[in-house]
């Protein structure tokens, strides 16, 4: 059985500022998304569908010093454990992110993110002539290829700047 760790590691240390004070408090339970590419935290939150109208307590730290990455972002979500399907979407913009599931201040699960084969309902097709940009009752659907995201309807490829098209 995997031994539980306390919430810490690089993410825990990095969030201490110059005065050794925590920029973001530890959470009792929920999810910590660590090693997010610097500047992408708000997009991660957007991908997870967390908006001002959702109820979770949310903490975000951006451009935190990191031994591995130079700078990174961290997102902490109180009282909500994200599923694998939810967190894998993050891989589209931050493939090195790590997910820590926290219970009673301990890291109970730690996992990386995997790029999914198909992304549905997350990204808008940039092609104005695509049928998905009409009033049809369908979600956008993209297959993930080596060149980027390929629209399953019109074959348009989003090669870079995926975040601009997040719904």
């Amino acid at each position, binding site marked *: 059985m995997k031994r539980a760790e306390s919430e810490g590691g690089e993410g825990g240390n990095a969030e201490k500022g110059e005065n050794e004070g925590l920029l973001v408090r530890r959470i009792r339970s929920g999810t910590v998304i660590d090693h997010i590419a610097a500047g992408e935290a708000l997009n991660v939150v957007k991908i997870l569908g967390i908006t001002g109208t959702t109820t979770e307590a949310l903490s975000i730290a951006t451009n935190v010093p990191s031994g591995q990455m130079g700078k990174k972002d961290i997102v902490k979500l109180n009282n909500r454990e994200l599923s694998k399907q939810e967190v894998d979407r993050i891989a589209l913009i931050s493939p090195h992110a790590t997910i820590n599931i926290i219970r009673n201040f301990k890291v109970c699960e730690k996992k990386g993110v995997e790029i999914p084969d198909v992304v549905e309902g997350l990204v808008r097709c940039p092609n104005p*002539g695509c049928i998905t940009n009409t009033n*049809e009752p369908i979600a956008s659907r993209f297959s993930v290829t080596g060149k980027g995201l390929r629209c399953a309807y019109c074959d*348009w490829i989003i090669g870079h700047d995926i975040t601009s098209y997040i719904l």
Partner: protein
Amino acid sequence: MHTFYRIGWRGKATRHIISIGDFDRRQIDRLLDNAKRIDAQKFDKNALFGKILATLFFEPSTRTRMSFEAAMARLGGTSLSVGSVEACSMAKGETLADTVRVVSGYADAIVIRHPKEGAARLAAQFATVPVINAGDGAGQHPSQTLLDLYTIRQSMKLDEINVALVGDLRYGRTAHSLASALSLYGANLHTVSPKGLELPASLLAELTGKGMRVTDYNSIGDAIPEVDVIYVTRIQRERFPDSASYFDVTSSYRITPETLANAREHAIVLHPLPRVDEIDPRVDSLPHAKYFNQSRNGVPVRMAMLQQVMQ
């Protein structure tokens, strides 16, 4: 008769022809072989007796629609069609998804042309009968590609031929689909297009990624001696800011008996039609001209397609 089964995203097994990219070489060859048998009058004239084809054309079309209806009639079936887009329920705001679900109850297969890319794939997702794509916006037009290949095969083997694509290669969906299909046969591509109307970079990367050799030319005269097939597409006037620049461009991409003077003896000229000024009418009487054969071939090829999805 072999049929292609695509498992729909909602788990149902259906037969559709949406994109030439869904075919492999063996499947294309088999369909073209069937078209050849049909062309030789070796087919059952009542093969689709009692079957109904719905033609849903949300964009104007003459030859594609008529040739599908002719193909259905020659196989003993009947066709239903929407009179005009203005008169149909989509003009009242109905979604395409609802339209195809309703029409699925009236017909045994649906042929669709729609201005939006991906519309045929959406239709296939919601229809309970086979869907054939007859052109979706700047996207796919697989029946045109199949009849283009069939016409080339009447004159030469498809393997490792040299094909010139001439004209609007940016927006010309027939040129895109043909280039993709030819990549399965080891063809070399020679492109001649006005500035700004070149092959899209993504398609070019895809073709070269499949090992296709693509050579771009500034002048049509340089490309013609190198090729076995000259595939001409229409350059649309609306792509240019004014009539003068349109006429400048079209005149330098025009196929004439003079431009064909250096063509290989067996070289053929194809055009998906309608042509405007791209091919001089004097070319019509030359042995190179195969575009009217190409148009006529639409019927046997579409007969083979209809048999494939409905039998």
